[in-house]
């Protein structure tokens, strides 16, 4: 029988049917009883049921297990989610059961896996942060127990918030760490500075606190303990520094005092400049390395003790110096120094060792201070005394002067003496008032202090008194003399009546008054007018004319000397003679015939083109001549455009002033008497026209006006002529 093989159950059923059929056949054959048969069939039924029941049970158990697994997974997932602070992705709801259990499980499992993975990641993050926190904490708090290699992570809370919190904590710790590092760094640099200033080994000092600190690059201990230790160390060192600084400053002050006392040379001081410059420095200002090292302080100490030794050896000298200083002040203020500690005594005392030189020095210094103070109080009166004394001097001088019979004679500086006398008289008139004022001031001073005012050891009041008495006596004497003179006058009058002759009571020299005026300012001015004045007063004015531009008297003599140096000793004499013969010479003046033929180089030749020029010009040339004689003997002169000449000579550069030629000629032919005469000819002409004494000549003599033109006038003229030319 073809049975479809598709359904095994069907097959089983068919097989069961065929088997039952087979069994019936067998039974039939065997002939079993029906009871047996039924019994057998029941048994068969029962066995079958058993099998079914077992299988159902098994399936049921399987189902339960599956359910349990799902529940577990879900629970785990929920736990993880809650630990990670996340909303569960999937919450099963029994009534919404979409698929079979196996489906459900297969859905949940990957989620669970995913979550587990994330959890592990999160956990690792936590571990990492925690480890860092732990590390920094250890660094900071210096817990020596090395932290447990496995950080305990609270598995129940792996939320992001917690992570964040941890991160924050870590950050805080990190900032604290960097703060601490900075602080340590600060402390270290401070320490370094202190060590360098005090000459200590920085490395060693730091090593004592923590060996890691001396390493400039590597890890540094930043624990509480280290920082505390650093702070205390710095405090300690600073105290030491201040101590040393005070010590050094004390030394420096002593040093300065000693230098001052002994006038130590600057070079020697220079070596300790770096010490003394810190005398007034405060602690933080001293930063230079080694300034406070033990060695350095010892070095300075040595110097100070050396100076001290020197001082004691020089004490005598110092006492002398101070004493001199005291005496100088006393002298200036006209005080008499205490004799009790005169130098000699002091020296003897010191040498004999009776007294300590230092105490004497101190005493003298005290005295100096006292004297200075006193001098200050005396100053006002002293100034007055000074004035009074000079007035007295002036009075004496005036008396002497009044006695001098020749006092009105003109002489060098006579006007100065006159002026002085005038001033002295005014001063003398003020004297009584001055004395009175001085006396009252002095009395007031004495009253105030209860001490006598001494001037060079003499009581000032007695000096003043004495002076007043003297003055009164003088006054009496003067009155007496006046009376006597009057009497004498009467006597003379009587004599005259008798004999008719009158002996002059006046001074014999009074005649000399005249020449004084000639030295006055007026004549000076005349002198500066130059040669024009020569004819007016011949013999004197020639000299003055030579000195023309410079009125200083000393120049005059210089000038004359110079002239002689130039080898023309006879020159001035000759000229003087010529001056006298002035008039005839003048006639020759402008005629070239006067030129001496022997002198081809003679200045007159050069001058020839100028001959029509008004004599004003040549006079000017002569003046320069004389000026030049003053300073350069034989350098020839070239003048750049003395403009006056211009209208006549086209190239003014060529004009060689007569001056030097004149100077030269006498040198060339020293003793030819005729030369000077030719020379002097132009000079005379120079003098005649009086270049500009009065404004009138300019008005009359047209040529003069034409000659003198300033550059501007010439420029304008040329401009105008140009314009004319172009316009015509």
């Amino acid at each position: 029988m073809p049975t479809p093989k598709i359904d095994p159950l069907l097959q089983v059923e068919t097989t069961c049917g065929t088997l039952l059929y087979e069994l019936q056949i067998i039974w039939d054959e065997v002939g079993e009883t029906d009871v047996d048969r039924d019994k057998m069939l029941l048994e068969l039924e029962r066995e079958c049921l058993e099998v079914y029941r077992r299988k159902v049970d098994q399936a049921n158990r399987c189902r339960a297990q599956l359910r349990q697994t799902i529940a577990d997974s879900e629970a785990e997932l929920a736990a993880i989610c809650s630990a990670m602070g996340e909303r569960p992705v999937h919450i099963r709801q029994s009534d919404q059961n979409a698929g079979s259990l196996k489906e459900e499980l297969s859905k949940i499992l990957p989620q669970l896996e995913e979550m587990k993975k994330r959890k592990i990641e999160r956990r690792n993050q936590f571990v990492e942060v925690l480890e860092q926190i732990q590390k920094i904490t250890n660094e900071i708090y210096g817990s020596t127990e090395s932290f447990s290699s496995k950080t305990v992570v609270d598995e129940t809370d792996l939320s992001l918030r917690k992570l964040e919190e941890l991160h924050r904590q870590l950050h805080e710790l990190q900032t604290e760490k960097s703060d601490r590092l900075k602080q340590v760094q600060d402390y270290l640099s401070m320490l370094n500075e202190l060590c360098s200033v005090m000459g200590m080994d920085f490395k060693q000092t730091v090593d004592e606190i923590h060996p890691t600190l001396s390493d400039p690059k590597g890890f540094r201990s930043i624990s509480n303990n280290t920082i505390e230790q650093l702070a205390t160390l710095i405090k300690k060192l600073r105290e030491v520094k201040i101590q040393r600084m005070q010590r050094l400053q004390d030394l420096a002050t002593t040093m300065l005092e000693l230098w001052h006392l002994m006038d130590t040379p600057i070079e020697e001081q220079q070596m300790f400049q770096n010490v003394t410059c810190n005398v007034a420095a405060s602690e933080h200002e001293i930063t230079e390395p080694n300034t406070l090292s033990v060695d350095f302080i010892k070095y300075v100490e040595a110097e100070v003790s050396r100076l001290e030794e020197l001082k004691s050896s020089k004490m005598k000298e110092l006492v002398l110096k101070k004493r001199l200083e005291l005496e100088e002040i006393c002298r200036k203020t006209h005080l008499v120094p205490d004799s009790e500690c005169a130098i000699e005594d002091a020296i003897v005392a010191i040498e004999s060792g009776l007294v300590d030189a230092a105490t004497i020095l101190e005493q003298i210094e005290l005295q100096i201070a006292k004297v200075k103070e006193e001098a200050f109080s005396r100053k006002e009166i002293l100034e007055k005394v000074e004035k009074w004394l000079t007035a007295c001097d002036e009075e004496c001088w005036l008396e002497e002067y009044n006695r001098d019979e020749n006092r009105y004679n003109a002489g060098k500086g006579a006007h100065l003496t006159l002026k002085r006398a005038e001033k002295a008289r005014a001063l003398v008139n003020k004297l009584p008032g001055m004395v009175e004022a001085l006396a009252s001031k002095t009395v007031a001073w004495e009253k105030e202090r209860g001490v006598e005012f001494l001037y060079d050891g003499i009581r000032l009041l007695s000096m003043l008194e004495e002076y007043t008495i003297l003055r009164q006596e003088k006054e009496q004497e003067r009155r007496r003399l006046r009376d006597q003179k009057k009497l004498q006058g009467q006597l003379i009058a009587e004599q005259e009546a008798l004999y008719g002759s009158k002996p002059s009571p006046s001074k014999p020299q009074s005649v000399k008054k005249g020449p004084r005026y000639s030295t006055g300012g007026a004549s000076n001015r005349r002198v500066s007018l130059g040669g024009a004045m020569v004819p007016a007063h011949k013999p004197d004015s020639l000299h003055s004319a030579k000195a023309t531009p410079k009125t200083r008297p000393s120049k005059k003599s210089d000038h004359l000397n110079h002239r002689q140096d130039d080898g023309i000793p006879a020159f001035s004499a000759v000229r003087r003679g010529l001056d006298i013969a002035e008039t005839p010479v003048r006639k020759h003046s402008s005629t070239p015939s006067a030129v001496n033929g022997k002198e081809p180089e003679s200045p007159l030749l050069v001058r020839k083109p100028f001959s029509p020029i008004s004599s004003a010009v040549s006079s000017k040339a002569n003046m320069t001549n004389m000026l030049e004689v003053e300073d350069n003997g034989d350098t020839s002169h070239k003048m750049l455009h003395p403009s006056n000449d211009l209208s006549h000579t086209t190239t003014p550069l060529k004009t060689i002033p007569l001056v030097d030629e004149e100077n030269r000629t006498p040198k060339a032919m020293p003793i030819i008497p005729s030369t000077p005469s030719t020379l002097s000819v132009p000079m005379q002409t120079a003098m005649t026209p009086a270049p500009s004494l009065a404004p009138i000549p300019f008005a009359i003599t047209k040529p003069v006006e034409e000659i003198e033109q300033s550059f501007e006038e010439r420029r304008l003229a040329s401009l105008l002529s140009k314009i004319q030319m172009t316009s015509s």
Partner: protein
Amino acid sequence: MTSAHPPPAPGRELSNPPTDGISNLRFSNHSDHLLVSSWDKTVRLYDASADSLRGEFMHGGPVLDCCFHDDSSGFSASADNTVRRIVFSHGKEDILGRHDAPVRCIEYSYAAGQVITGSWDKTLKCWDPRGASGQERTLVGTYPQPERVYSLSLVGNRLVVATAGRQVNVYDLRNMSQPEQRRESSLKYQTRCVRCYPNGTGYALSSVEGRVAMEFFDLSEASQAKKYAFKCHRKSEAGRDIVYPVNAIAFHPVYGTFATGGCDGFVNVWDGNNKKRLYQYSKYPTSIAALSFSRDGRLLAVASSYTFEEGEKPHEPDAIFVRSVNEIEVKPKPK
């Protein structure tokens, strides 16, 4: 003929210089403005510190002198015989009056509030610039001089007039009727320039023959004993002295020392009291026509411009240099 002067800077050269000879230049008393008169018939106003030309004022003829009134106006003396007032901001010029000949020099007296002009017509005229225009009202007085006026200088109420014929008249501005003193120059040659000491005790006078005289107003013997003259602006060449005219004198407003400029192109600074030369600036391209210190003495304006001392001839271009003055160059050195 371009200049080839040595490298050491003679000071800053102002751009837009006058195109013909510079007759004078002056600094203002209130600023670093510089007024320049020239033969090119202009007066120019420069801002020396900014090197800018602020104004140019044409005249009828060459301008021989100029001076400031205040920072907004000035005066000029022209060869067309006129005296003009220039208002810088308007570019306006009005004629204060006329002389009978070219006007050689002009000064403004702050003390008298008057303009004083000297002319080749042998007169000095005083003008009141406040008067309405019209000669009748501006002219204060005319004072005859012995000769043509060549140079003027003022200090306080004193006015020194140097004329041709080497005359020097000293006036008191308060009484112009006649000179307080009539003098003759103590130099033997034509006067080029006269300038009063800033302290009012005297004046310096220069001549065409390389010489400067230092004079004092006080006629007492003691004062007159102090006067003296000295030689300057000369050159020794092959044993011969070349003597140059001294065209300009300018006193330093602070130290009282003074600068002289000559046709040799040099500017020298002198200490008159100690009789010393303090400084010589490097040579300028041509003659020094005028000099002026600024109000604080920190700047020195130098006009390097041919002054016609050798007649018509080719010459270096006219230029104005403004140099800053080092204190050391002008401070008196005690002996």
